[in-house]
């Protein structure tokens, strides 16, 4: 398990991704989904560089 703010590294190395924001678990799912089609609006906004 790795914890990283560097999204490229997370995407390259992991099979499962958890998005934590200010101590809250926002989304947990397959890495492909987290980076290509997130279920949560906040995950989407984070991975596409709209906040954070």
């Amino acid at each position, binding site marked *: 398990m790795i914890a990283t703010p560097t999204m*490229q590294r997370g995407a390259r190395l992991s099979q499962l991704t958890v998005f934590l924001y200010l101590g809250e678990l926002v989304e947990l799912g397959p890495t492909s989904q987290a*980076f*290509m089609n997130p279920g949560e609006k906040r995950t989407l*906004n984070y991975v*596409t*560089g*709209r*906040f954070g």
Partner: protein
Amino acid sequence: MADHIVSSFDVDLGGLRHSIGEMGGIAEKMLTDATAALIRDDAELAQAVIATDQRLDALQREVEERGILIIARRQPLAVDLREIVSAIRIAGDLERVGDLAKNIGKRVLAITGHMHPRRVMIGVQHMSDLALGQLNDVLDAYMSNDADVAAAVWARDGNIDALNNSLLRELLTYMMEDPRSISSCAHLLFCAKNIERVGDHCTNIAETIHYLVTGEPLVGDRPKDDRSSFAIVEPRPASAGEPEGSL
């Protein structure tokens, strides 16, 4: 959707959309003019269509180069990455629509001065109107990010296929009745096929829009009505009393 933290990223993406809009406008005009040139036997207009294709080719290269540059610089993800991949794909489809219109233009020059069966010309015009309607709707769906409008375009393509099939049968009949019409009818056959393929590119674009908006492919069997691959028109049997083998 909210803007990016880096606002120049939004400017980059907006620029891609703008270029696709311009390409769509040019492709629509090329098909409109190519069909008008065919119906009116207008060689000058056909030449103009052929010349316009360069601009469409240049825009497609531009969209590709800018898309690749954005991927390299911004490392887009999720909907942003789909936006760029979609722009590159749609640019490819629109460039092909331009090629098909250009090909109609070339065929107009080849058959200029020949008589064309009037009923066939009405059919070609009708088919072109349908294809232009599909192109217009699918470009609207792209500009408004509307997956439902895109799916409706996708489902409607069968109408164009059916018309192509009936035109093919009609042309085969003309060719059988009057061998002098064969060369111009053969060109008209390809013109109709070109328009039918414009419809296919519209369905490709519709699939891309669905993927862009939802992240999922448009699945299911598209309603098809293209039986032209199996069309055969038998010559009429020789009338009774005529000696066997006579023409």
